[in-house]
């Protein structure tokens, strides 16, 4: 494994509620090397997605700090964190989050266009061919199956060549067979491109494919596991 790409130190998240402050994460620490893969598992409401949001810089911790690709996210404002995300982070969502008005090619082109890449179309086409959708370039998300949509989403996530890929329940909306194919694709691309993978899942089989696994219970890290 390479140097650390993602470090969390004593990470806590507290939110106010009607009954008083509610602690979602309790002083959680982890260190992830470049090219590593981490699965976060746990019951619903255990804080998995909150942890993912904090690690990706989508939300701010109440205490502790996150260092992503050498950037301490704590002192950064929202726009600066957006810049870090643009340069180092990719996302795969459970519900794909493809833009309905764009076809598959344009969806994959989007991060490349935002980055001002002149070869956006060619890059997007290559990635879609890599995920097996070379003949579905002009199809809109409504014309694609769930598995195909997730493949487009994965192609989009890898388009900007992120250092860290965050995936939230990437197979959650798919049947087991399609989910298996998607996870194969995810790990293949992860290996090909040396991307660090952080995924939240309920799927134990998918979690076991990661090199590292952590289990959360009510915001506490109960089982750090090296696979």
């Amino acid at each position, binding site marked *: 494994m390479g140097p650390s790409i993602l470090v969390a130190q004593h990470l806590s998240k507290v939110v106010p509620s009607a009954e008083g402050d*509610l602690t979602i994460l309790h002083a959680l620490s982890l260190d992830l090397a470049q090219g590593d893969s981490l699965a976060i598992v746990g019951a619903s409401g255990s804080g998995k*997605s909150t942890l993912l949001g904090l690690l990706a810089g*989508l939300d*701010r911790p109440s205490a502790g700090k996150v260092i992503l690709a050498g950037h301490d996210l704590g002192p950064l404002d929202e*726009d600066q964190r*957006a810049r870090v*995300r643009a340069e180092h982070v990719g996302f795969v*969502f*459970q519900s794909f989050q493809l833009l309905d*008005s764009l076809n598959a090619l344009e969806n994959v082109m989007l991060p490349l266009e935002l980055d001002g890449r002149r070869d956006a179309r060619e890059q997007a086409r290559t990635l879609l061919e890599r995920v097996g959708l070379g003949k579905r370039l002009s199809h809109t998300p409504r014309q694609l199956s769930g598995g195909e949509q997730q493949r487009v989403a994965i192609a989009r996530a890898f388009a900007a060549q992120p250092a860290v890929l965050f995936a939230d329940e990437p197979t959650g909306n798919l049947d087991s067979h399609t989910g298996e194919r998607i996870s194969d694709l995810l790990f293949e691309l992860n290996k090909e491109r040396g991307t660090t993978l952080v995924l939240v899942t309920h799927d134990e089989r998918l979690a076991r494919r990661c090199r590292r696994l952590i289990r959360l219970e009510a915001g506490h890290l109960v089982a750090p596991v090296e696979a």
Partner: protein
Amino acid sequence: MTHMPLSRLCGLALRQLLRDIRASEVRVLFFALLVAVAASTAIGYFGARLNGAMQLRASEFLGADLVLQGSAPARDEQISAGKALGLRHAQVVEFTSVVGGDAGIQLSSIKAADGAYPLRGQVRSAAAPYAEETPGGGPAPGEAWVEPRLLAALGLSVGDSIDVGMKTLRMSRVLTYEPDRANNFYSLTPRVMMNLTDLQATGVIQPGSRVSYRDLWRGEAQPLAQYREGLQKNLAANQRLLDTRDGNRQIGGALGKAERYLNMASLVAVLLAGVAVAMSASRYAARRLDASALLRCLGLSRHQALGLYCLNWRCSAWWPHWRVPWSAGWPSWACSACCMGCCQAWCRPAESCRHWPVSPPAWLPWPASPCRRSQPLARCRHCAYCAVTCCRRHPAAGWCMAPPCWRWA
């Protein structure tokens, strides 16, 4: 993505707009805009034309645009002030007097008018009672036009003479219609119309006589208003100004109601247009929430997102602008910018993660989280919620947007 040049942002906005148009995303909004603007334009234009036509028609019931009426002749400076403004002038003197014929006498309503009378509408007369009417003209000096009932009362016929005071006038025609004939005391008795130049010779106007002097004016709205304003400052106690509203109470009332109705129709059209545009913009903005959040996830900053959507909407607002030239772009932009600006600029990336089962407090109902005190995630939801659903939940807010938009347009 440290710095995105404006040209790239414009390119992205244009591409996004073209993709949206291709995907029918913005057609509903465009259609709502076009219908709203066309309806409000049509009603406004039609209302203005209808109002103008009614005003013109109503002025015929007065015989002029403006009348200075008094029991004494208007002062010279009052007349010269109107003529200096380029207004057309006519003079009428009305009084009641006994008219004598060979067979008897008859109390009559005399109208002495100069050659310019009437300034609006036309007098109609006939060569004999119940004969075909001829519009225009007026009695020449030495002549009188009389109503048929005077002929019947005095047993005379056209061509005979009558005496008005000390002046003998020949009844040359039968008077069938005068535009400013009012339903007042003078109209109870048969009308005799004579030329104003003969009035002095009749000798019936004496000190203390009950006489109505009417100075009729016609002209463009602006000088007419200027003249009216000047006159009102120094009207004598026995003088008053009449226009189409107060010259005839029934006509004025009907005109007022018609104007109020047209104004109300225009206002309703504007309100409906505003609501339609606000609703479609709100729908469009709501559908864009995920997209803008995704853009933020992909690393677009708040300002870049705001710039992208503002440019996108500026481009889209031009589209109806080309078709309905006077305003469509601006209301569309105004309404949509209110929704889109708030939503897209302040929507944080976590907003996209409704599919992530985020912590329970963040899912509290948005309005329950005050902007200043809530956590950032809840705050951005609150802001987005307020902007997008403001019109949906509080139609009055949507309506409130219409007048400024209209004003802006």
